């Protein structure tokens, strides 16, 4: 993306966008909310909230087997979201889209089902040193069960993946690679397309943890050629409780089911149970119908905007914040990769991360502090945690100014010590 071809958002556009997000109108302790905790969860536009109210007020019903009006309306709305997701990520077919509870469940599903089908004693699974716990623990659990080995691609001091190490780690025992697209604690954007090509030369499939990238990149699974992708609705303006597992048809068809129950079967008897076709085979029990439908609305909302421009603007926010934060005494930025997305992790000398987070809270500024579910990253940098500000296109330059001034005060507060 270059400044020549893409116009950033204008102030008017931003303020129109902000009007659609009711939480952003809140005051916290009498001060306007500055919401910089977007990597944890994004705020929801009115349209998304409204679609929940509409569902529950107008056509709430269980789906699939119902022959009555409400059930058909709900089933249609639910299944349409599969097509919306397919289109959003450029998958080939909507039957490659499985609805889950979130990124975490999507990864657990793959770890368990893929493990059962393909991993045996001595096999290897590769992840990176910057993974979120949700992309570590499921693999650890599976590897322990199957006596397989978890191998880890290291990172450098800037928080970049040492991609050369992948080549050395890949071998004939490697069964799958699972790697994050954008690190939630460092902001690093990994060269996943390259990694996938590299893995494919060895015929090793790749899962991309797109929890952070789904809202901050334009994802094309076809172009990336990834085998699996996991992401959550709540980080892309949709409701909590919904996520997606995208998987190439050949994989979905090869994987054994993960959970058993209603809707995922084609026939049940005590002697023999046969499973439904994909993707339904992976959706056991009553689904999160309302939230899937509202998730569809969040996709519509994102699609209605010019995403190229949004993403360009988000990069501007990051650059501006990264520049200005240097004015704060004792600042140390954690994560200085050359390719970064709108996440700024840092520490202030003498100040405990939580204390600073709480100070920012007194100013109505919401950031996250701690290990961000990436303890291995913290161990690598030998720090207990960071303060993390994460941006979305509804944030503004003047919010960053407020944030920087507050940080300066915090730095003084703890400098005394």
């Amino acid at each position, binding site marked *: 993306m270059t400044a020549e071809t893409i116009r950033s958002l204008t102030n008017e556009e931003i303020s129109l966008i902000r009007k659609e997000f009711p939480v952003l109108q809140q005051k916290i302790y009498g001060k306007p909310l500055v919401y910089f905790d977007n990597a944890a969860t994004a705020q929801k536009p009115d349209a998304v909230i409204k679609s929940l109210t509409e569902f529950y007020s107008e056509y709430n019903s269980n789906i*699939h*087997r119902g*022959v009555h009006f409400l*059930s*058909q309306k709900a*089933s*249609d709305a639910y299944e349409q979201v599969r097509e919306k997701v397919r289109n959003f990520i450029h998958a080939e077919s909507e039957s490659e889209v499985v609805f889950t509870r979130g990124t975490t469940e999507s990864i657990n599903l793959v770890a368990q089902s893929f493990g059962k089908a393909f991993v045996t004693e001595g096999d290897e699974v590769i992840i990176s040193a910057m993974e979120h716990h949700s992309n570590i623990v499921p693999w650890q659990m599976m590897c322990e069960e199957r006596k397989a080995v978890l191998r880890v691609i290291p990172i450098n001091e800037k928080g970049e993946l040492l991609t050369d190490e992948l080549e050395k780690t890949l071998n004939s025992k490697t069964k799958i690679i699972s790697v994050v697209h954008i690190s939630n604690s460092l902001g690093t954007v990994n060269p996943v397309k390259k990694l996938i090509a590299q893995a494919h030369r060895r015929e090793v499939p790749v899962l991309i943890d797109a929890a952070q990238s789904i809202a901050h990149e334009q994802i094309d699974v076809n172009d990336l050629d990834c085998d699996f992708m996991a992401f959550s609705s709540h980080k892309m303006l949709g409701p909590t409780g919904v996520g997606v597992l995208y998987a190439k048809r050949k994989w979905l068809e090869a994987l054994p089911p993960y959970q058993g129950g209603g809707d995922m079967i084609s026939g049940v008897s005590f002697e023999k149970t046969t499973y439904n076709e994909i993707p339904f085979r992976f959706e056991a029990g009553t689904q999160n119908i309302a939230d899937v439908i509202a998730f569809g609305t969040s996709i519509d909302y994102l699609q209605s905007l010019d995403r190229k421009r949004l993403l360009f603007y988000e990069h501007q926010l990051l650059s501006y914040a990264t520049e200005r934060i240097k004015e704060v005494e004792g600042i140390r930025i954690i994560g200085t990769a050359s390719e970064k997305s709108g996440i700024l992790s840092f520490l202030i000398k003498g100040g405990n991360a939580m204390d600073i987070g709480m100070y920012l809270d007194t100013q109505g500024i919401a950031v996250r502090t701690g290990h961000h579910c990436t303890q291995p990253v913290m161990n690598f940098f030998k720090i207990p945690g960071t303060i993390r500000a994460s941006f979305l296109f509804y944030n503004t330059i003047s919010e960053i100014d407020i944030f920087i001034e507050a940080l300066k005060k915090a730095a003084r507060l703890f400098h005394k010590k």
Partner: protein
Amino acid sequence: MKSLAETEQEIIDDFTFFENWEDKYNYIIEIGQQLPSLNDKYKIDELRIQGCQSSVWLHCSEKDGRIYFEADSDSVFVKGEIALLIKVMSGKLPDEIVNAKLGFIDTIGLRQQLSMTRANGLASMIRRMKQFAAGA
């Protein structure tokens, strides 16, 4: 012999008389009850299309370059839908069948009822009909 498009239009014309879903339902049940049963020898698993709540047996044949369909179901409503489909598709040329858009399903307002995709095998039935025609 009427073209596929012409028979579709006839059905659309028929349905303009019905004001609501109940009338349509009753009409479809009526023609479902009138559709002759399929010979039992064709009610075999190979010819069966499994929906979630009803089964359809579809027998396809070819004669003098035209394709003929006979079918049956344990649901009278599905038989009614079949009757409409047979009216449109049976006795037509392979090309017509393969290329049929079957817009009438939308126009007569049945789409909504058919959209409980997994509750009946209509979509699969259309697919099978087209497959047979394509192979003929």
